[in-house]
């Protein structure tokens, strides 16, 4: 310490960031057995992924099959990088416990901040298990091409990991900044469409390749991917094995260039995120237009407590970035997945279950979205069932038209328009069953979200909770609707006629049971739900 007590040189080491992240993680779990359990489950899953990945990547080396390695490495590696790109957007979100905005007041250089946040992002379960999984390629490279190939592959694996983390950080940061200001929601829609557009064709290509078993085409694809940033890091060792040493520096250059580009992009969006782009909104103080109740309810909704609750919820689905992001994600995934399956000749039946469940999952932490603002409903004494029904109704206002759209589009793409009614029936059944499951879960397993405008922000440990809840509800819904799926399959053409009423009845029944349970639980546990969604308690 200098006598003045002022550090003249701001620190440049990234380690304080790592320590801060680990400390936040540890403090988040202290005295909360549920969080510890979640963490353990997450660690087990990550460990399983690491072991399985290592085994798969190491097999070609054990068998001594170079052709298999040439296919597997670029394809598997690309899938990994792609997963890092898409999964945070679709399901898990990014742990924003190190929110860049919190560092805005510290005398940190941007370079220090970026390195620190980047290294902190590396110090996590996903990054560790990815590294362990891809280490299998090193073992294969050593078996096929000796120590030289192994060293090259090791460099590639590390580069690949850096690429994975950088791509997920850069993309979510760009998204968050994009959705932050209300005016740029159109930009967000476009970006989501781009991600979805990537998802669709890739799936088509993969499915087509797998069905035709045209290994030459797949090999060509693998070769091409090997020269893109997605696959380049994972094919370094193979180039050494094949004796094409000249390719190694070129591919390294590709990886390094992409990494630099991503980090630059990230730091640019980070800058804007730190400034907190406080959107001015539409602060036009017009004359007295419309009555307050008219402004809230519009023309259609009843002038009652239920009407007010539904109106507030629908406003929130559109105005709150997290909710809007989940609606957009659902729309994109709900349309593209079934369409791409239909195009490649698959059956859309099981997908109906997936889409219906995906819609309902958005409500898994419905009380967490607006945090302790829920206190207003408590002091007004809103009964649990009214609360639950109004929230489900507001969600359905958005989702039901989308489900109809999905049913129509899928049937038309598959050139089987007669299936519209039956498919819609299946969709309604799964949506209803999903709601029946998710509503009680939302009362029991509410957790707090940080007061952030980023749609991907989660408190530390929240990502795991969200992912597991999502997965659990999905599986539960699939199981619950299995009888209906079997019925639809067995009945064949008869289902085309009775599918819609039967599906709708099944969905309504499941919803009614679930909402009654959820309403009663909410009445019993109102203050506990409020405490659960309150940040920092």
């Amino acid at each position, binding site marked *: 310490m200098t006598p003045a007590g002022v550090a003249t040189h701001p620190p440049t080491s990234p380690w304080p960031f790592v320590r801060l992240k680990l400390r936040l993680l540890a403090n988040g779990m202290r005295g909360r057995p549920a969080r510890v359990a979640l963490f353990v489950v997450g660690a087990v899953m990550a460990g399983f992924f690491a072991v399985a990945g290592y085994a798969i990547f190491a097999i070609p080396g054990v068998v001594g099959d170079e052709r298999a390695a040439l296919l597997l490495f670029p394809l598997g590696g690309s899938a990994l990088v792609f997963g890092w790109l898409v999964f945070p957007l679709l399901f898990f979100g990014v742990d924003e416990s190190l929110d860049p905005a919190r560092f805005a007041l510290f005398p940190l250089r941007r370079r220090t901040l970026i390195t620190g946040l980047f290294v902190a992002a590396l110090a996590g379960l996903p990054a560790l298990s990815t590294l362990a999984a891809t280490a299998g390629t090193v073992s294969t490279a050593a078996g096929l091409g000796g120590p030289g190939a192994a060293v090259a592959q090791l460099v590639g694996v590390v580069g690949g990991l850096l690429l994975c983390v950088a791509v997920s950080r850069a993309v979510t940061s760009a998204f968050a900044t994009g959705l932050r200001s209300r005016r740029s929601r159109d930009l967000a829609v476009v970006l989501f469409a781009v991600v979805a557009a990537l998802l669709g064709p890739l799936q088509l290509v993969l499915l087509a390749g797998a069905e035709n078993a045209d290994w030459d085409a797949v090999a060509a694809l693998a070769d091409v991917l090997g020269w893109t940033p997605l696959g380049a890091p994972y094919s370094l060792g193979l180039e050494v094995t094949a004796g094409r040493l000249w390719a190694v520096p070129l591919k390294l250059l590709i990886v390094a260039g992409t990494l630099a580009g991503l980090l630059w992009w990230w730091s640019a969006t980070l800058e804007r995120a730190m400034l907190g782009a406080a959107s001015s909104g539409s602060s036009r*103080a017009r004359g007295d237009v419309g009555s307050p109740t008219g402004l809230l309810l519009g023309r259609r909704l009843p002038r009652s407590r239920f009407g007010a609750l539904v109106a507030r919820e629908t406003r929130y689905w559109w105005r709150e970035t997290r909710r809007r992001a989940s609606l957009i994600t659902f729309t994109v995934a709900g349309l593209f997945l079934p369409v791409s399956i239909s195009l490649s000749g698959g059956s859309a039946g099981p997908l109906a279950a997936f889409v219906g469940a995906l819609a309902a999952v958005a409500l898994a932490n419905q009380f967490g979205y607006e945090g302790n603002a829920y206190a207003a409903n408590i*002091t007004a004494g809103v009964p649990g069932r009214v609360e639950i029904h109004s929230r489900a109704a507001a969600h359905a206002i958005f989702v039901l038209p989308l489900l109809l759209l999905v049913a129509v589009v899928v049937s038309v793409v598959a050139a089987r328009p007669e299936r519209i009614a039956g498919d819609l029936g299946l969709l309604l059944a799964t949506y209803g069953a999903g709601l029946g499951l998710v509503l009680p879960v939302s009362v029991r397993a509410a957790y707090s979200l940080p007061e952030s405008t980023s749609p991907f922000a989660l408190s530390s440990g929240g990502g795991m909770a969200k992912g597991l809840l999502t997965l659990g509800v999905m599986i539960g819904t699939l199981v619950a609707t299995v009888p209906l799926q079997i019925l639809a399959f067995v009945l064949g053409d008869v289902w085309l006629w009775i599918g819609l009423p039967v599906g709708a009845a099944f969905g309504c029944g499941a919803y009614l049971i679930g909402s009654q349970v959820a309403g009663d639980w909410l009445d019993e546990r109102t203050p506990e739900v409020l405490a659960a969604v309150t940040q920092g308690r």
Partner: protein
Amino acid sequence: MTVPVQRAGDQIPAMALRGLVKRFDTKLAVSEVSLDVPAGSFYGLLGPNGAGKTTTLSLAVGLLRPDFGRAFLLGYDVWADPAAAKARLGVLPDGVRLFDRLTGPELLAYHGLLRGMDATTVDQRARELLDVLELGTGNRTLVVDYSAGMRKKIGLACALLHAPRLLVLDEPFEAVDPVSAARIRDILQRYVAGGGTVIFSSHVMEVVERLCSHVAILSDGVLRLHGTLAAVRGERSLEEVFVQVVGGRVSTGSELAWL
């Protein structure tokens, strides 16, 4: 050292707390708090930061479940008969978000309809409140974009909209500009004169001394002193009593010498 509460005849107290206890993890946030707030009083709840003011008020209005003890609002048990207890209650919580993705008028309409009022009354009162509190009847700004003072004011408007008999306000004057604060004081004084009861928390002595008929001093979750302002204050200033009761440190002048 406790000054006995002055009961105004046989009236039912507007708020009655009986042995409230609340523990967070290891910290005892509220310990055995019992308090009667007489109907028609202007009650100030004083305490330093972290004394348990917000926790006590949350326990009293049913936002937080006490570990032990009971709370009655206008004679109704908050946990046994929540609907009746909350019907005539208006709350302005502190540190609690509003439904801030609504505009000011929308938020007021929401609160009014939630209380089961008819739409015409809601519209008329909402317009009046927005006008009096200078929030603008045609303001389309979302509450999330309001300044801290405006947020306090819209929160107060929401608490007043259904004309409650008891107002529970947590730090109502914080971040509010002097002009608005004067207006709010005015509204509250008229409200009490008309038979309403106000209990509010604060750590600003001047405001409490000017407004309140009764005060209670809370520190470390324990109710140290309560009663009418005159009885609590005695011959001294309220600030002197407060610092002495809370056990604040007296500056020796030697600390922070480097500053």
